[in-house]
């Protein structure tokens, strides 16, 4: 991202002057309210689907955050998502089931992994970053899926969710609300970060790294911070996903996950903090609708992704926000 021709790494529309705030994002508040009300009216299966939307949405928001704040297009977030999930499995293998102990340690492990991958990947910029993150994620996939004690290529079941301070999370509703609270906290932290001086500098870096360097910022260090934060959030989503499915396997680490997270960001709207959440909802709905007709529903997803990239590259969230009379940010 050092030559002028590479400026196209970021679309200019990503950098509107308006700052995101939780209260200002009406579409997101509406969606969160929907998540909160869901267990009261919907049957358990559908509640589970919405829990899934929140978990993948959290990971997708993390991917979007790194793109907006630092211009970092990561095709390797499956590694962090999967690492979070496998930490839950490793803790279980060692006999630990207490969320307050296991989850922070899992996030720490993800942060360390992201620090190493980030340090290496950030040595060059632009397109190479996409390829390198994909490469290292594949390496993590091979290491973990080759480990017999972690279930190798088949994965392992968890037999029950982690305990949160003695409270069982095995009930669908209890876990749904826990994920909702976690998502709310993550979105709050993301909002605060994106409005912080470092967050603003990172937005500048996404737009024009050289100019920010000339202004005296240290782009690489800020980008690394953004990357590690984004990875930790994706890892948290992985921790929640492992508990949701009560199963951990190599599918978490598969490069398809990295791609689908990017698709969610794009479908929802890359300029919006909560875009990934809407993208996750669209993808889950898409799967629900088209898998009615065929198990090969991705035949339709591929062209849909291509068309949306070519013709509506702003995503769904800005349109929704305009519809609800909020600010188009």
């Amino acid at each position, binding site marked *: 991202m050092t030559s002028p*021709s590479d400026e*196209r*790494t*970021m*679309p200019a529309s990503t950098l509107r002057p308006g700052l995101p705030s939780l209260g200002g994002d009406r579409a997101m508040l509406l969606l969160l309210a929907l998540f909160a009300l869901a267990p009261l009216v919907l049957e358990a299966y559908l509640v589970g689907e919405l829990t899934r939307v929140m978990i993948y949405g959290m990971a997708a928001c993390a991917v979007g955050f790194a*793109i907006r704040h630092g211009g970092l*297009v990561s*095709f390797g977030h499956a590694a962090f998502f999967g690492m979070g999930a496998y930490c839950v499995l490793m803790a279980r293998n060692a006999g630990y089931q207490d969320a307050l102990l296991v989850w922070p340690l899992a996030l720490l492990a993800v942060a360390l992994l992201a620090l190493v991958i980030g340090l*290496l*990947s950030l*040595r*060059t910029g*632009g*397109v*190479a970053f*996409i*390829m*390198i993150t*994909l*490469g*290292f994620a*594949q*390496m993590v996939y*091979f*290491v973990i*899926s*080759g*480990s*017999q004690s972690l279930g190798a290529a088949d994965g392992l079941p968890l037999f029950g969710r982690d305990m949160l301070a003695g409270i069982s999370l095995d009930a669908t509703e209890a876990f749904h609300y826990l994920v909702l609270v976690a998502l709310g906290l993550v979105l709050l932290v993301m909002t605060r970060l994106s409005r912080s001086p470092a967050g603003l500098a990172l937005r500048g870096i996404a737009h024009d790294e050289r100019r920010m360097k000339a202004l005296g910022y240290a782009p690489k260090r800020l980008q690394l911070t953004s990357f590690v934060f984004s990875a930790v959030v994706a890892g948290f989503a992985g921790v929640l996903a492992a508990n949701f499915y009560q199963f951990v396997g190599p599918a978490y680490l598969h*490069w398809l996950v990295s*791609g689908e997270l*990017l*698709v969610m960001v*794009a479908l929802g709207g*890359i300029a919006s903090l909560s875009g990934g959440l809407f993208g996750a909802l669209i993808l889950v709905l898409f799967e629900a609708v088209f898998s009615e007709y*065929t198990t*090969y*529903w*991705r*035949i339709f*997803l*591929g*062209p*849909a*992704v*291509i068309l949306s*990239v*070519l013709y509506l*590259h702003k995503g769904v969230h800005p349109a929704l926000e305009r519809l609800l009379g909020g600010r188009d940010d």
Partner: protein
Amino acid sequence: MVFFLEQLLNGLNYGLLLFLIAAGLSLVFGVMHLINLAHGSLFMVGAFVTVAVAGSTGSFWLGAAAGIVSTFLIGLVIERLIVSSLYARSHLDQVLATFGLILFFNEFLRWLSGGTPLFAPTPDGFGGAIEIVDGFFYSRYRLAVTIAALTVAAGLWFMLARTKAGMLVRASASDPAMVRHIGFDVRLVGAMVFAVGAALAGLAGVMSGPLVSVEVGMGEQVLIIAFVIVVVGGMGSIKGTFWASLAIGLVDTLGRAYTPVLMGGLFEPRTVASIAPSLSAVLIYVLMAAVLIARPQGLFAR
């Protein structure tokens, strides 16, 4: 010694096949600044078409011709319909749209093939082994593939370095506006580069058919390795891509062959059997990390 020679030739064979794939990726990036995730899909399509046509006609050579021609045409269609509108877009858009192509190709072939791995027959006259030096036998088909890939690589070099068409490609890479102003159609150059790159990946798929199992997902395995090659060799440098392909092919093959042997002296057989496969799978990524530390722009970057 015989084991080493065999692994060396296997590594060379694998590296040259990787070069056919990575070359298209590198050329398309060099000329159009496009990152094409669907490049591996063309490798897969090449292999599938060969298996299907060879299976129904009984002739490997008809299958091979069909594999190369179909990937060239598919490349041309994709370029005109989708990829050409992505040149001016962000790399993120390019990644997303070509990821959409992967989803389509994978699922379409999974639907057609039913998801079971297929096996291509070795062409007539290329079965069995040939004695290269006294007491050293090597697969006749692998040797033929090595020679064919080497010939194609040399042809590609000759075309790029010595012909007018190659000059046009190089000129389009460094200054497309000037090429346009002196009266050449840069869009046509782009389309041809993309289609030839697709056919090269298809050719690699054709030749890999009898060597590996032909299945959905084979494209992405080589795509990711091709990315590693492009990073190691240096973005847009075809020379770098060539040497990096050979290096990755050799490191991967020799690593898989010798990691269990080297570990055998240090650990119990059971530990070796469980750790060695994933350890040797990791070697090429360790090589990428080392290159990123020592020379982040790639070994042969200008």
